[in-house]
């Protein structure tokens, strides 16, 4: 039996702010297979980021079930979640989220440090990946605050690929980039998808979502509709 990569059943998330309860997700049912390229689209506040955080094991739903690659991740330890994030998932964020006071190369190395991979191997892999995403060699030793937005996002993607994950989760990765850098980035995502990696991408923009083979529309914490697949 083929098991889905993501399997969410009636996932709800309610934020409590004092006495006020803010429902961010109101019952999501979603399955995503291995190697899929999915875009999640919706208005601001519709719950896209919340859904992605849950899928990335950064957050837990208030209610519902969630199996990742067949594993009931709502029942595992904090340590196991850290290992899943480290090994199975690569994150790309709108605000790049590079580590401060670290060079491009060191940023890319970081996931391998937590994976306990030795230095020479780490550096070799990091350089290969940076070359692959098209960062110029002379930028490898620049600190994150010395790089442009496009360059930073390239570093972030290289970092997401460091432990060779099956899943890339990207929350508005082009949101802080101009169209040219955005297109360049999307080409990389398409390539990664061709390598059988599942890509889940949150976006506002229709034309970015069109790179995906399946588009999920969110509205007020519910899946309103899907196209593709």
């Amino acid at each position, binding site marked *: 039996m083929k098991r889905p990569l993501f399997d969410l059943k009636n996932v709800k998330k309610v934020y409590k702010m004092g006495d006020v309860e803010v429902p961010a997700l109101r019952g999501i049912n979603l399955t995503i297979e291995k190697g899929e390229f999915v875009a999640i689209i919706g208005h601001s506040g519709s719950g896209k980021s919340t859904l992605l955080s849950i899928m990335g094991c950064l*957050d837990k739903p208030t209610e519902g079930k969630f199996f990742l690659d067949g594993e009931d991740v709502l029942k595992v330890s904090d340590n196991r979640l850290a290992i899943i994030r*480290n090994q199975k998932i690569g994150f790309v964020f709108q605000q790049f989220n590079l580590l401060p006071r670290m060079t491009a190369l060191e940023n890319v190395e970081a996931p391998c440090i*937590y994976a306990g991979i030795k230095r020479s191997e780490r550096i070799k892999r990091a350089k290969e990946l940076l070359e692959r995403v098209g960062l110029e060699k002379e930028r490898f030793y620049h600190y994150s605050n010395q790089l442009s937005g496009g360059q930073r996002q390239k570093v972030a993607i290289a970092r997401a690929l460091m432990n060779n994950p099956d899943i890339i989760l990207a929350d508005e990765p082009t949101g802080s980039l101009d169209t040219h850098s955005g297109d360049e980035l999307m080409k990389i995502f398409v390539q990664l998808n061709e390598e059988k990696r599942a890509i889940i991408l949150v976006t506002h923009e229709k034309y970015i979502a069109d790179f995906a083979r399946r588009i999920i529309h969110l509205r007020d914490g519910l899946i309103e509709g899907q196209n593709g697949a």
Partner: protein
Amino acid sequence: MVLELIKVAFRSLKANKLRFILSMLGIIIGVAAVIAIISIGQGASQKITEQISALGSELITIFPGFKGGTRGKISTQVTNIFSLELAEDLKRLSPDVKNVTAVIQGGAYLKYKENNMMANVVAITPEFSEILNVSTQEGRFITNQDLDEYRKVVVLGQEVVNELFSGEDPLGKRIVVQYGNRKFMFEVIGVLEKKGQMMFFNFDNQIYIPVTTVMKRLTGAHYVSQYYAKAREGKAEEAIKQIEFILTKRLKDENLFKVFAQQQVIKAVGQATSTMVIMLAGIAGISLLVGGIGIMNIMLVSVVERTREIGIRKALGAKRRDILIQFLVEALIISFVGGVIGLLAGWIISAVVAHLNNWPVVLSPSSIILAVGFSMGVGLVFGLYPARKAARLDPVEALRYE
């Protein structure tokens, strides 16, 4: 892995050097204070012990006791018991007493040509030289013949020579000694070798005259003010018992005298200084705790500031333990570097103090280990709370932090 986390910790400390230094300050001051106090205390007590031991651990001092003092009467020191004959008897009757000297202490006004000064007068018997390890550098010491003939001869301490004779050779010269309100001419027969300060008196600013001269010619007193005795090698305790036994028999009252062994004095001084040092070091130790609170303070600020970084690291797969170690290592680096700098500062302070006071610089390995170890312990304890706080941050909330 841990090595990498140490590197990361170093990196973030380097990024904010001023804060790093400020966070170390409390520890530096605390460790410096502890080290300086312990080292100065040990140096001082070593010097004092050395001085006392230089007098010989076989030295025994016998003072008159006090009488009266009951029923509201004021107690007075007993003055009419220590005769020269009793000193002879003590020496003769106690097998473990090697030598006894009878001493009268007083003050006098000295004059030579136009120079004059005040000095302590120590009236002694020849045995004084052997018992207190003093000898003359020039001329001769007081002899039994001087005592038998009540000679008006004097041996001078170095400082007295310097002040009174200003370069002139004092031997054979006659000086005026005003004792009470009577003046006597004394002939200088010797100059004592330089001895310096020993415990309670300075041998160099005193003059030494035969005890019988004081008794027969100067005051007419029949008794001396104290005895010094010297026990045979390693027999101090036995000697004291014998002296006490004889004196109790003779005087029929054990409150009329007091016998002190030099060893007791050494022990008492040692105890007093070490209690003092422990107390002061304890107070200084409190400043180490304050330094620890400083570390905690700054680490807490640092955790809040780096909330986002912690979130990123968690998204990349850092476990709680990884974050905990990273911040704990930071606290340990602060306290270790602070401890080492404090150690150096404390060492410099104690070296300067030791130099000024002319005593040895004592910095025992145990106090080094204690100070650095304690400061790292402080870093560990006070770093734990901020590090745990960092490790327990919720990843999503940390990533959302602006």
